[in-house]
């Protein structure tokens, strides 16, 4: 019987406290891992990728609300901007391209946005990646051309079981119960999955918005009269300077626009980090709770080892009598602690990825954002060594107590 077998045997003898300690450590580690992984992926998705848009031209109102509506298909636009004003902004020396859009309709719980077809050819939804209808990429059909055609994002199509050739009636407003337009719009294409919120939207031609039945004559006129036309906003591409950096004139453009009463310029990468600054305390609290669970689990381990030691004094004294040195019994207790900790930590890592997998699916369904259950977060790298170190300290005092155990006293008490 070797040292390892002694450790395993001892753990099996106290299987209940061993399992409880492992489970509670696993739970704590899983929570920490899941929180950190989802936080890092969310932060990266919301702040680093930009979804191909350098800036959003939007109406006056909350910058965050505008970003959430225009880029994440959440919330509602706080107003409208004039088409003529948008054209004026396009002429600015730092603006490379602009795609106007109109929000405010829905179908089957998904937003129906009116947009120019150029969006799908000119814009990169992620660096270097364009929209596609190619079946090889997972798309179907083609881009809309006629007035009564539409395309759907991959997630919207999957949820609503859409196929090219099917038709729908857009609903006015973004909440259920709005007026249903009589116009039948036909799906001609399903976009290949992008892993972005664009998967969760349905797109119709820009001018189709104005001519939907039930809209007032004022809105109907906007289809043909550019002087009266209004849009919800526009995605802007800013010119680049050497090295691919945004033209520094974007800040002047932002200032100039923000001084007007008609519109404002919002740079997503400036707004979203502020959001995370505000809600950062949420995940700090979650992380704090997870860390507390882990520490409590390690405390439980410590208490379990100390109380087990009281019951095992005779057994350890007997091992000493059989020839085990003080160092051996010290190592035995410490090894048990490390074994439990390692088992709990590894189980926790796997469980954490399982939790992330569930979270990813929920997030994908609700927002269209694709996260990865296999994402290697900071917690994945540091969890195991940190927990092992803590497990070492949890086992150290009981191990020292075992080291100092008197042989004769503890055998004599039973004789």
């Amino acid at each position, binding site marked *: 019987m070797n040292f390892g077998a002694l450790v395993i045997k001892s753990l099996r003898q106290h299987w209940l406290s061993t399992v409880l300690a492992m489970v509670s450590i696993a739970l704590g580690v899983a929570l920490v891992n899941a929180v950190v992984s989802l936080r890092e992926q969310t932060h990266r998705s919301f702040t680093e990728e930009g979804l191909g848009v350098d800036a959003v031209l939007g109406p006056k109102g909350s910058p965050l609300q505008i970003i959430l509506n225009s880029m994440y298909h959440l919330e509602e636009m706080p107003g409208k901007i004039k088409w003529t004003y948008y054209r004026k902004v396009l002429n600015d020396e730092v603006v490379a391209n602009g795609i106007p859009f109109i929000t405010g309709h829905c179908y089957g719980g998904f937003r129906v946005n009116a947009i120019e077809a150029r969006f799908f050819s000119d814009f990169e939804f992620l660096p270097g990646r364009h929209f596609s209808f190619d079946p090889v990429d997972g798309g179907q059909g083609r881009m809309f051309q006629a007035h009564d055609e539409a395309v759907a994002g991959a997630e919207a199509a999957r949820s609503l079981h859409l196929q090219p050739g099917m038709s729908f009636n857009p609903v006015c407003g973004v909440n259920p119960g709005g007026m249903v337009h009589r116009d039948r719009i036909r799906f001609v294409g399903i976009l290949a999955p992008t892993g972005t919120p664009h998967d969760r939207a349905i797109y119709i031609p820009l001018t189709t918005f104005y001519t939907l039945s039930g809209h007032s004559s004022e809105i109907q006129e906007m289809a043909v009269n550019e002087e009266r036309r209004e849009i919800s906003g526009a995605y802007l591409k800013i010119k680049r300077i050497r090295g691919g950096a945004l033209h520094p004139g974007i800040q002047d453009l932002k200032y100039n626009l923000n001084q007007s009463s008609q519109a404002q310029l919002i740079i997503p990468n400036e707004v979203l980090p502020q959001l995370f600054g505000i809600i950062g305390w*949420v995940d700090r609290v979650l992380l704090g709770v997870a860390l507390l669970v882990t520490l409590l689990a390690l405390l439980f381990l410590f208490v379990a080892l100390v109380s087990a030691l009281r019951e095992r004094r005779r057994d350890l004294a007997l091992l000493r009598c059989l020839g085990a040195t003080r160092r051996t019994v010290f190592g035995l207790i410490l090894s048990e602690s490390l074994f439990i900790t390692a088992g709990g930590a590894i189980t926790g890592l796997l469980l954490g990825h399982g939790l992330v997998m569930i979270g990813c699916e929920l997030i994908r369904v609700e927002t269209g954002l694709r996260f990865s259950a296999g994402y290697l977060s900071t917690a994945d790298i540091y969890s195991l060594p940190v927990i092992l170190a803590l497990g070492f300290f949890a086992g150290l005092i009981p191990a020292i107590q075992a080291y100092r155990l008197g042989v004769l006293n503890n055998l004599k008490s039973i004789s």
Partner: protein
Amino acid sequence: MNKFCFGLLAVMVGWYGGSLYAEDDCCATVPVKKCEHKAAHGGIFNAIGSCKTGHVEVKLNGGRLQFWLLGGCCEIKRSVRVTAREITLEVIPDGEKKSRLLTLKAVPNELADEKVGDCSHFEGQADWLSPVKQFAATGELFFQGKLYKFRIEYPDGFDPDEEN
């Protein structure tokens, strides 16, 4: 509406009173002793009258001097338009004893429907300004209905409240 994510975001943002939904209100609760806002164009703030009255953001780039007229401490992100078509400055470059005159002309922000005579942005250029890195200047301006004599210190900035 995406119940899960938006619910979380809305609760959290709403909980904070929507600080991203409202304008900054720096003077509301804490008395402001020093303006610590970031200049939108990378220039230097100089107070007009007092910090609460208004500011001019000054930027010197080569021989080109630009002015943006802005509100007081609580309104420093908002431009303030003046009727002046040009602003004349008496500039004393650092190391010189004699002042020079520099005229800044109005450059309207068309995106904000400004025009000459209703403008917040002024620019001037001079060859003698090209090598200058530091200067002091004075001028006069009708600002928010009153005539102010203002002082510019570049690149340190000028705040009469600090001097007092």
